[in-house]
């Protein structure tokens, strides 16, 4: 069985710097790592591979600048067997439509030129874009079924080689859990409740160092330049800004906790809130 996990290299900090001129994120000099939600995707893929055994394998794919290769090597150190890198200036500025399209092209290439793909796993969302759009979008391009917010893979039966099978998953809903079955090949997006990712092993680190990672630009993918990057994106970021938080509330006065409590309760009663 061949499982592909889609990953993204994202800033490793919440403390982002904004370029005052352009109002966009300053990515230079920012520490980068695998998007934390993708670590659960890598781990789940490796677990499924270990469970199914045989000649099962896990591949990872990313779209990103040259340094995103570090994230791919990190994924190999965590148990992935192969990595593929969609890389080129033409991909810059892609929205989720163009990103899912490029990944689709990459997956199609992996299936055709390497091993047919049976299952794709994405993280729930990234910690920079926060959209959660890539998994379902990718499934649309591929015309595969998909389920997002997966917190458990209950059962999986794969014929391998892209020949089909079934997967039973638990979807975390606001009011409980949906249990769904899909035919393979399929796409799932996983939440952090699904597993506890392992740390890179020594063997994995050795493999990561040695791995040859193919780099594909738009030509290699056979992607039309009109459909990639900023030019191919239906949406653009028109502006970005720091959120303003309202301030100027009232400080409740009082010398003791009792006095403060009395004054607060009086205010809340006045407003009919309690």
């Amino acid at each position, binding site marked *: 069985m061949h499982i592909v996990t889609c990953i993204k290299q994202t800033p490793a900090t*919440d403390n*982002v710097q904004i370029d005052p001129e352009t109002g966009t*994120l300053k990515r230079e000099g920012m520490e980068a790592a695998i998007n934390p939600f993708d670590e659960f995707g890598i781990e789940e893929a490796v677990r499924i591979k270990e469970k199914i055994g045989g000649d099962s394998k896990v591949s990872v794919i990313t779209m990103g600048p040259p340094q995103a290769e570090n994230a791919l090597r990190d994924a190999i150190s965590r148990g992935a067997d192969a990595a593929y890198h969609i890389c080129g200036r033409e991909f810059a500025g892609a929205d*989720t*439509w163009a990103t*899912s*399209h490029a990944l689709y092209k990459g997956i199609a290439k992996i299936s055709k030129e390497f091993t047919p793909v049976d299952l794709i796993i994405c993280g729930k969302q990234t*910690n*920079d*874009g*926060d959209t*959660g*759009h*890539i998994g*379902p*979008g990718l499934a*649309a*391009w591929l*015309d*595969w*079924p*998909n*389920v*997002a917010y997966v917190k458990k893979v209950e059962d999986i039966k794969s014929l391998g080689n892209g020949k089909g099978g079934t997967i039973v998953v638990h*979807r*975390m*809903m*606001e*009011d*409980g*859990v*949906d249990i*769904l*079955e*899909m*035919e393979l090949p399929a796409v799932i*997006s996983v939440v952090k409740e699904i597993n506890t990712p392992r740390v890179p092993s020594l063997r994995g680190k050795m493999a990561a160092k040695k791995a040859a990672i193919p780099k594909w630009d738009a030509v290699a993918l056979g992607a039309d330049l009109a459909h990639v990057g900023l030019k191919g994106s*239906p*949406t*653009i*970021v*028109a502006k*970005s*800004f*720091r959120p303003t*938080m*309202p*301030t100027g*509330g*009232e*400080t*409740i006065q009082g010398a003791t*906790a009792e006095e*403060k*409590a*009395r004054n*607060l*309760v009086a205010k809340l*009663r006045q407003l009919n*809130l309690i």
Partner: protein
Amino acid sequence: MSSEEKILAIPIKPEEHKDVWIYAEVRHGELVPTAFELLHVAKKLSVPLKEKLCAVVIGSGVSKYAQDLIDRGAEKVYVIDHPSLSQFVDEVYANILVDLIVKEKPNKLLMAASTIGRSFASRVAVLANTGITADSTELDINMEKGGLLNATRPTFGGTLMATILCIRGHRPEMVTVRPMAFPQAEPAPGQKGEVVKVPADPAKWKTREKHLKFEPEESQEIDIQQANTIVSGGYGVGGQKGFEILRSLAHKLGAAIGASRRAVDSGWIAYRHQIGLTGRVVRPKLYIACGISGQIQHLAGMNSAQTIVCINKDPEVPLMKLATFAVEGDLFEILPAIEKELDRSPARV
């Protein structure tokens, strides 16, 4: 024809698209009130555009919801009602909605950024060959740009706001809207509107995804998204025991219990109580924050509460500045004192 070829063959003709649509989510057989929030904000978009406000509802036995949607402002409701649609599955639902979009050509489409909405909307957007913005919290019409939709959303964990435009003519401009970011449209019973029954043809559907079972979460507690009042605890609560003091006050007030991510990650309280960007978004009348400093990710989940009370030892933390009423002090002294005060004088009726 591959899915890719089909998608790319959908023509981009913005001038042919009209009307503001909302997708009224039905979850496990019940209409979700986020539909009314969408109607509230969609009305503000349809009026300046002089376009119709329409709703789409998909499910089994959902025809009965059409009048609710009309009472809350929908002028036209598309109903796809079929017994085999009793549970949401991405694949079939997406095919149905995309067929309707391609046929009817709406201008804007708003969906809730719920579990269903966030995954469903993205599949629909790609299949309909259009652009989408996730998790919008502000929406308005950009008249200078010919009526484009300004979709503003928090990004990067809420530290940055971005306004997204669908500028290359793809339609409908799609957005998911964060639940609780807008109030609900009020009902005006007896409104008149058009109901369009869209024929459903199961023979056409791909059914590679099947819903086997729903296991509802059994909880005796008041749900944070249903509550008028929330008593919420952060790292300053100090542990599971500290939450008992919050629970005691919550019980007295008929309030739900909320928590910050740090409190949940510390294992003091279950995830379903978590409020914020990685938890749930709430819009209660009264939010009482105890020992919560107010990281931006937490604020994103509760800053549209009507009245915010913050109890904290440190007057300098962000939430103390944001609060309607800031109470400086030790929550372990203040909360019991509030309870006593509530006992001392009867509440106004």
